């Protein structure tokens, strides 16, 4: 429980040092509630103390988030019906209400679809690089949202709630499972380098969970890719750093020795030692220059460092997204638990996100191809390193886009149905669970759609967590990632 009963003396766990006063975490209390004893935990530092609800199939997660609302019918969800009725006045058989009233004629996909793999799953040309790994992927075409407003919908996908104030999925997972490495953050976020999506860092905030479970952002192109990783001032020297840390530890040790019974003081000393290790390992993991040429090429980095024109284009998108995917793989290899990669910034200008009201082909084309190159490389690379089997990959966005046109080249928001796909740890590949209707307007079976809670519940399940039992009390309510909802999607579980 978050507001605990005054439990104050907790043995510091091995890696993360959380301490709480009256309002603080309460992981200890929760773990006891679950019948596990965190003091016995040796492998893990999360609230579950390494003792899971059931054996896990996945250990780590990559979440790919397409900000602005990627069009399911132009990427994943093949709609031959639209090909036949292209250009005819749209008629949904009911009154519809759209964000920008963009209910023009039926409009077929802006890209051609072709079957791939043994499963024969149709993918659009915009994401053709993923054809090679399509048999690893499980598609959910009947996902429904709750609103066509970006901010609320992004919150819903990222945190399970439509409004601010709730932890991101990565925070819940970090909180529950803790770290599997000594030298890097547990939850890493790679934002779009052009700016944050709707809601910014609140999509990966820890809210009422301990701050240590929040996502740490990495901006690979910045001088200091991780905030505060190194000191930049003219008085800093290598030797000064080392002997300074020794001196600090020695004085802090004296202070702690004079104040027995306060584990925080030991924990804080240890946190400085851990920080020093992170300073050594983080730059190394971010340095992709030593990756072999064929790997770099696979991730779309063969032109790295090129300068690009003002118009949105495939090589540029491929380079930026591919770099994040490659760094993600390196982070996962070093034991980062949860990596979140974003594509698409805020609604700045010119448009560099998936909110293609004006022109699907212009914006979705390069964004999708760049995303697909990096993502396909990541999946193949994880597989060849035998890591795909316990790495769960989720591709998501805040909602879909309408099968009718907006203007003559764009599409309006469609919160009524959209697509997610998963692959890797514990996921059955080459399957489709849940269809949309002939237009891609709503779920085929409107009574039984899939909701974000179901995706989250299934992912937690694969990580060994019962989504109904991972709760934290905040302001009088026992909160969980899946609110009061969530069913396992059995058909995609291997």
């Amino acid at each position, binding site marked *: 429980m978050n507001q605990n009963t005054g439990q104050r003396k907790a043995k510091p766990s091995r890696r993360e040092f959380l301490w709480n006063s009256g309002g603080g975490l309460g992981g200890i209390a929760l773990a006891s509630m679950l019948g596990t004893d965190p003091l016995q935990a040796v492998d893990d530092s999360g609230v579950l103390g390494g003792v899971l609800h059931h054996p896990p199939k996945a250990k780590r997660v990559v979440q790919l988030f397409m900000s602005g609302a990627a069009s399911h019918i132009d990427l994943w969800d093949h709609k031959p019906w639209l090909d036949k009725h292209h250009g005819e006045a749209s008629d949904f058989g009911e009154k519809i209400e759209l964000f920008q009233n963009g209910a023009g004629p039926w409009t077929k996909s802006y890209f051609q679809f072709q079957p791939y793999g043994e499963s024969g799953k149709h993918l659009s040309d915009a994401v053709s690089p993923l054809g090679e790994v399509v048999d690893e992927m499980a598609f959910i075409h009947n996902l429904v949202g709750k609103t066509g407003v970006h901010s609320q919908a992004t919150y819903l996908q990222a945190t399970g709630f439509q409004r601010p104030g709730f932890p991101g999925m990565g925070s819940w997972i970090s909180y529950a499972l803790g770290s599997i490495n000594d030298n890097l953050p547990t939850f890493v976020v790679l934002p779009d380098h052009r700016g944050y999506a709707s809601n910014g860092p609140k999509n990966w905030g820890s809210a009422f969970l301990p701050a240590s479970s929040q996502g740490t952002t990495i901006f690979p192109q910045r001088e200091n890719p991780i905030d505060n990783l190194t000191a930049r001032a003219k008085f*800093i020297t290598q030797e000064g750093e080392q002997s300074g840390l020794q001196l600090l530890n020695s004085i802090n040790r004296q202070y702690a020795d004079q104040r027995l019974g306060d584990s925080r003081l030991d924990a804080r000393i240890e946190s400085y030692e851990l920080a020093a290790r992170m300073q050594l390992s983080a730059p190394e993991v971010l340095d992709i220059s030593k990756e072999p040429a064929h790997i770099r090429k696979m991730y779309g980095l063969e032109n790295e460092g090129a300068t690009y024109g003002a118009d949105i284009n495939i090589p540029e998108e491929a380079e930026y997204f591919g770099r994040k995917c490659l760094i993600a793989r390196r982070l996962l290899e070093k034991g980062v638990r949860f990596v979140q990669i974003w594509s698409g910034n805020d609604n700045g200008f010119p448009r560099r996100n998936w909110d293609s009201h004006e022109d699907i082909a212009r914006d979705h084309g390069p964004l999708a191809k760049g995303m697909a190159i990096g993502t396909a490389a990541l999946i193949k690379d994880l597989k060849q390193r035998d890591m795909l089997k316990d790495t769960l990959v989720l591709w998501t966005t805040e909602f879909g886009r309408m099968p009718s046109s907006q*203007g003559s080249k764009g599409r309006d928001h469609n919160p009524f149905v959209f697509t997610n796909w998963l692959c890797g740890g514990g996921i059955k590949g080459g399957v489709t669970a849940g269809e949309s209707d002939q237009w891609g307007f709503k779920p085929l079976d409107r009574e039984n759609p899939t909701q974000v809670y179901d995706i989250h519940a299934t992912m937690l399940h694969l990580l060994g967590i019962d989504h109904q039992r991972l709760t934290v009390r905040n302001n*009088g309510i026992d909160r969980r990632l899946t609110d009061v909802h969530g069913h396992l999607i059995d058909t995609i579980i291997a």
Partner: protein
Amino acid sequence: MNTAFAVDSEQVFKQQVVPILQKHCFACHNSEDHKGDFAIQTKAEVLESGYIEPGDPSASHFLAVLKPDGNAPPSMPKDREPLTREEIEVISLWIQSGAYWPEGFLIAQPAVTSTDWWSWKVIELQTVPAAENPFAAHFSIENPIDAFVLAKLMQKGLEPSAPADRRTLIRRVYYDLLGLPPTPADVAEFVSSGDLLAYEKLIDKLLASPAYGERWARHWLDVVKYADTAGYDKDKLRPNAWPYRDYVVNSFNQDKPYARFVREQLAGDQLYSDTPDGILGLGFIAAGPWDFIGHVEVPETKIDGRIARYIDRDEMVTNAMNTFVSTTVQCARCHNHKFDAVTQQHYYNLQSVFAAVDKADRLYGEDPAVTARKKQLEQSIKEATESLVALQQEIEAEAGPAYKTAIAESDKLKSFTALDQRDDAYGFHTAMQQTTADTQWVQIDLGQSEALAEIRLHPCSDDFGGVGNGFGFPVRFRIEVSDDPTFKSSTLIADETQADYPNIGIAYYAATTQVSARYIRLTVNKLYDRNGTPMFAISELEALAADGTNLAQQKRVSSSSSIEAPIRWTRKNLTDGKWPVPVDIVKTQQWASMLVDAEKLVGKANTPARKKRRQELTLKKATMTKELAGLPKGRMVFAAATDFVGMANFKPTMGKPRPIKVLHRGDILQEREETQPGTIPLLNKDGVFSLAEDHTEGDRRVAFAEWVVRKDQPLTWRSIVNRIWLYHFGQGIVTTPNDLGRMGQLPTHPGLLDWLALEFRDHGQSFKHMHRLILLSSTYRQASAHHETNSQIDSGNQYLWRMNRRKLSAEEIRDSILQVSGRLNNQMGGPGYYLFKLEHPQHSPHYEYHLHDPNDVTSHRRSVYRFIVRSQPDPFMTILDCADSSKSTPLRDETLTSIQALALLNNKFNLAMAEHFAEDIRSLQTTEAAQVNRAFVRLTGRIPMESEQSELLAYTQQHGLENLCRLLYNLHEFVFVD
């Protein structure tokens, strides 16, 4: 449970069966949701389902699904705890005895009705424990606080600790009351003082310091989610939020009685409208997050627009109930509260209290005479505007059927005029002007004199304010050409200055000519009204030669003004060859010419008498508008408002409450019962306020405020003294400060809590009185040292056998570093300073923290005054556990992480301050030894011991004073307070 009974009476049915059905089945199988085509709410539903065979449990499918299926768990309830064996037995017996169901009986949504809970009970006068004190030698009973605490300690077999030494005490009290460290001189004076009242005097001095309000306001702002941006998408700036923050600081410094503080924040505009604080306090209601897109871009007529406003109201209700009465009601949005006596009805009654208010900028502290004159002028301007509209209608009526037909015909072509393509480069846009009568021009230099055949003006398309096509097109204008760039002499090509030209969407305006000239100038003498801001915009100006070549393409553009906001708006765009294209250009031009013809018909009906009348009205309106604009501008605060300047779809209610109904499952599309303004059923059977039939929306908020501050209100007074207590001790008497309900914790010292509540309520509701009481107690003055026996009994120190050692908050760390480094600027109040570089503020602001210069002196002020960004909070402060303004933070978390260690070591602020610190110390002391001592004492309040001193000195000699200063910011002894 005795199961050997027959369920055949109403009483047994209601007591035994109904609770089981309510608990396990109702949520899905009620008459509304009818999941799996089955409901158990009425007798008919149960009998007609065919799932229950009265008298035959074994034939009843209903019972089968509740039982385990072999090794598999029962299929019902789905995804929930199964029924207990006893419960299944009750259901079985019920079916066996005929599935008795009283005629007309309806199972209701389960609701807690019992209000029998400690925090809802009257606060009784407490008897102060008067037991003998065996620890009098080191723990004296200074006031009733100590008596209550001691009684509990003795009951638990614990011993109180001895008082802390003076050096520890002064540092503790400084941080507690001011959030800043004492200076070495303060420490020396206090430690060596022979005055028996030195401690009392110290407390009085600190409570009188303005820094006290800065520290304690921050606690309040944490709870109410204060920030300087909206949050959500775009995270727009709230440039007028800060007056509320200053109001909170000032209220603490003035020691404002709590009931007044509460009333101002809920209904100050109704109760104290003649004081600035009456309006400023309403910043409370507006403090939390707000979805710009859901309010501004989506109208209230759409579902998404209604959802946005509904969530916003929920935010207001939650903030008010969590903050003032520490009650969780927000879960009753979707279903009755599962633990407390709060139903959906109560919750939606609370929503209706806030049904008319929105979050917006509103005036405060304006001269009443100015307000009156403004109202007068606004009314007259409104009347003049109405007269002008009426006049226009009169003219159109006289223009007759031909006019109507022309309009009807043109409407048929309307669909072809829609936007098909638009480039990101929109066009040319003047700067914003004062009135539409201001003259603005733009001109093109063809480079040399050219033979011209036709000039075309292509209008713009911009979705700003929902306008779309025809955005910014001039209302009255002329086109001239000349060989003289100053147009001293020129040839008039087109003159549309005598009558308003209709807005022709994205059809182009064409004027033919046969002259040669080098310069083409468009002069506008009546501007476009862009949401009250006069300007004009043109996408492209084409100058066609006889062969159709555009001579103007890529030619130089100059103008009287330009907004210059590339890529969309820049002068160059006027000749870039890009303009918005309609679906069918030919039909669009036809449509435009029909529109112009219709306008000419109107022209005939516009008789000289009417023209004169229009002139008079227009002049009158302009004069009044000018006077209105000239009146002194009031100051604005972002607060709850019913009357404000709207923006696109975000419009004021003008005090008319939105209709609020109970929403089934919290779903905006499932409206149910009506609501009445009210609250939870405390002090009033159903919680409904008694208000007159014709009450105003303000009356609702007043009723709510008065309910909160009632003398016999058990929650309010307990809630606030618990908050005061927890900030002093680091833990509350109730450790769930925002929830005193059944999901919260019980008080460790219930008698003390109630004693404090009455003491506070009946002694002027003075925070400073409570601080004095607490700080003067022996309980507070205890040392924080470990005690082995005590800690074995009470390791968490919930009974306060010692003081809690605490870690400094983010603000305390930053403010202390500024102070010890000699950089702290004590200037109070005003707009928040930036700790980031602000980019793209007009659209989606980017808050670039990594581009901020830590040496920027405007940012060397106390942290309470920093500009707080909600969605993109300051990363440095966030790492140090500062409050998240997306949620209520009644008590900060305290974490210790490696990321935090890196921040204190390497953050650019600390590095920059280390240089200032070193420089300041060097200017005061010449020897390195003295410098080391001086720096150390500033941070810790003591001179280093010899062993420490020699280590520190050696390090300084080798690596410099800057490196030492930086290390000192990382000391345990700095970061923790004993």
